[in-house]
């Protein structure tokens, strides 16, 4: 279990103080897989490094597996090597002067949980079997492929059976196909071991598929913490809507208690609390929720012309121009629309999101 309360971190640069973390609150339950998602520079890696103790926070409390690891007010700071963690780095950080066995055995021989010599081999083999690298013990670590190196790093991080597993973009240095394959395996492994995991990534697909819980971060703050399907279906802010998945955005303004006017007409949709009449809002709808009708738009209130088509195989993204406004529409790959064609456009009212 990880509990973070009011975590703050700032760096003093030549241009003054830069706030990297502006008060992070987060709880990761026992055996939960929590993903920190955000663009580069949002503070996700800094948060992870604070949990690892590789970075010293300036304020806030941090609790790992029931013990306080950091608390500036109580003058507690547990150094990295004393924290019950395992960590996988972006660059895999495999020690080049050791072979696979030595890399994985090192934490058991020199680390925090040293065990009897004759038990080391068994533990190492077990960890390597878990990542499907058994049989490669004697290979020089640098001879392995990128994916294999990352597996060694994973075995090394889990061989001591730590309470907490930290991963800093472990898949981002791998190529696309391998990344997807490793993603599936990574999930299996962490579930099999049942370790509490904190995982950092800027790849939303990775976040949505891996996490039991996703925290979207921006500018040193957590904007939304929710299960992946909720983050995707109900982004709680404009930034989350922009960052997670594709979205169409339309400017509008509120004309009544449940009424928004926009270039597509006046829509009867509820507005968020605290947004008063006459204030401007941003409407958002996902491309896959926009429906097209080839019957020339006679039956629908809206009609537009298809201006571009981006064929992706399993799907296609069409651009539809409605009264000078351009909307993206995602359709199955075999839908038959062509550029220039007129089409009716339908957007179910419950698919709209409204942001102040």
């Amino acid at each position: 279990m990880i509990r973070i309360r009011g975590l703050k971190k700032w760096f003093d640069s030549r241009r003054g103080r830069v706030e990297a973390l502006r008060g992070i609150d987060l709880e990761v339950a026992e055996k939960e897989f929590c993903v920190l998602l955000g663009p580069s520079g949002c503070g996700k890696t800094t948060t992870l490094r604070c949990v690892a103790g590789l970075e010293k926070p300036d304020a806030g409390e941090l609790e790992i597996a029931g013990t306080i690891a950091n608390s500036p007010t109580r003058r507690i700071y547990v150094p990295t090597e004393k924290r019950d963690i395992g960590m996988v780095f972006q660059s895999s950080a495999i020690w080049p002067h050791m072979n696979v066995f030595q890399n994985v055995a090192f934490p058991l021989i020199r680390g925090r949980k040293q065990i009897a010599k004759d038990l080391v081999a068994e533990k190492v083999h077990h960890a390597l079997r878990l990542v499907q690298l058994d049989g490669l013990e004697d290979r020089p670590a640098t001879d392995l492929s990128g994916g294999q190196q990352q597996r060694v790093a994973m075995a090394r991080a889990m061989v001591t059976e730590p309470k907490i597993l930290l991963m800093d973009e472990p898949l981002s240095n791998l190529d696309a196909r391998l990344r997807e394959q490793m993603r599936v395996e990574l999930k299996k492994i962490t579930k099999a071991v049942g370790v509490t995991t904190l995982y950092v990534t800027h790849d939303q697909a990775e976040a949505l598929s891996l996490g039991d819980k996703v925290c979207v971060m921006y500018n040193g703050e957590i904007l939304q913490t929710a299960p992946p399907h909720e983050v995707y279906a109900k982004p709680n802010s404009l930034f989350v809507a922009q960052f997670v998945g594709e979205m169409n955005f339309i400017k509008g303004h509120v004309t009544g208690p449940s009424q928004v006017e926009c270039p597509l007409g006046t829509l009867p949709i509820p507005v968020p609390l605290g947004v008063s009449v006459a204030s401007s809002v941003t409407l958002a709808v996902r491309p896959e929720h926009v429906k097209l009708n080839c019957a020339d738009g006679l039956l629908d209130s809206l009609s537009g012309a298809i201006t571009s088509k981006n064929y992706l195989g399993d799907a296609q993204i069409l651009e539809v121009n409605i009264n000078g406004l351009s909307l993206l529409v995602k359709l199955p790959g075999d839908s038959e629309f062509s550029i220039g064609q007129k089409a009716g456009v339908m957007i179910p009212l419950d698919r709209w999101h409204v942001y102040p």
Partner: protein
Amino acid sequence: MLFAGGLMALLLFMVGVPLLMVVLMSLRTGFPGEGGPLTLANFIAVYSAPGTYKVLLNTLLFASGTVLVALVFAVPLVWLLTRTDLPLKGTIYVLMTVGILIPVFLRTIAWILLLSPRIGLVNQWATQLFGLDHPLISLYNIPGMAFIQGVSFVPSAFFMLAAAYRTMDPSLEEAAYTAGVSKFQTFLRINVPITLPAIAGVMVYLFMSAIAVFEVPAIIGFPARILVLSALIFTSTNPPAGLPDYGLAGAYGAVMLVAGLSLAFFYVRLVQHGKKYTVITGRGYRPRQISLGRWKWAALAFAMLYLSMEVFIPFLVLVWASLLPHLQLPSAEAFSQISLSNYETIFDYVNALPFINTAILMFAVPTATMFLSVLVSWLVVRTQVSFRGSLDTIAFLPHAIPSILLAVGLGYLGLAYRNFFPVYGTIAIIAIAHTITWIAYGTRTTNGVMIQVHRELEEAGKVSGASTPRVLGRIVLPLVAAGIFNSWIWISMLSYREVTMALALGTRKNLVVSTIVWQFWGNGWVLQVAALGVVLVLFVVLVVGALKIGFSRLGEVGPGS
């Protein structure tokens, strides 16, 4: 192509001919230019004498000791300065840079003033205090020599190793911390083994340099009758009495040359092997510096201990000696005698010529070296010339040639073929020797600088219709100017402090400041040496300080890569 060929020929000539001369003189007897048949007489004379093997053993011990001393200080310092939150890092960097530029012979002399069995201040003090009838400590032995030479090599070792440390992925260390390994264990079992190829490379490089150095062996070794190869080569060509014997020098030099070249080969191999270990991270994450906690002050004390030996103590001893009418311990009486008269009388001993000559060197040598280096690097890094690899190797070769051999070879050339090469006894021959030596350093830095300037910048210039010289002058040069300026200053300062080649090629007409100090010491004018030495050191501090303050925008001033 014609231009590339011409440059290749020039470099081959500059590096190859002095070496050829060393081989040639080892096969001839008599005075340079006397001709005569080729003979192995010199080799027989040298290698049948049992004394030679004693000298080889001394050289080996001295070089090994030097490497040991240098690494004992350099390795921890590199770790402390690149990875930890050691205080005063900036100051330590600057002082190390100053340390390189203080001539080794000045440091040696200062330590003699402190530890000489007869006049040394420490021994005077110990005799007074404990009533000892023998000196407490003496510098006149191989450990003493290795100590001073080793201390002088620390900055070079430091800057070479620091480069290796910076390319090391910091998450290799962090992975160990998260596995629960202590900082000390991590340093011992992760940092040291991973940088071992780099450390081995530095060891070979230092060993190669230690075999060739001349200043410490001459100043301490001669009076103590501890001879090493370089000292023998020097005395063969510059005997205190009698005629120079270039043949013997050549025969001694041959073994040094073979050792130097094979070590250089070994060094290149090690450096290539080391590259296998460098892992480049996905992003430029600045790792958090390791907090030293309560060890901070112990670490600072270690750095200060080193800097004391390298800079502070030698400088203070020189200042103290330069202010007194005779060398003595601090006392009320001594303080009452303090005056600047040693400084005022410097020009009673020497005229302005050496100062003018040094100024000429400081301007001509870096200009010529950087000019050649830029051209060579441009060919090596930027063009598709077929022999660019060999060009680079030849430019690197002077690193492997002991400077004393290069000087002796050039001297022989100047004497034996003075009709074709009429520069013997002029400042020009010293300038040529310096240029050849530092072209290896110059091309290393210009290579690095050129690689940083992306090829496409040049190609964009060409596509827009600019000629090759215009692209070089208007696009490449402005981009690399800062790096080149940095190397120019550095080579200028190296020329300023150089004494071995200046001595080996020296006559009464081409004296420079460094050889003047050497002469003063030889004549026993200790206090004038101290005064002149203080002035020399202050000049270094002034130059480095001015550059740090004034030109910090133009890039790091220092020994570079």
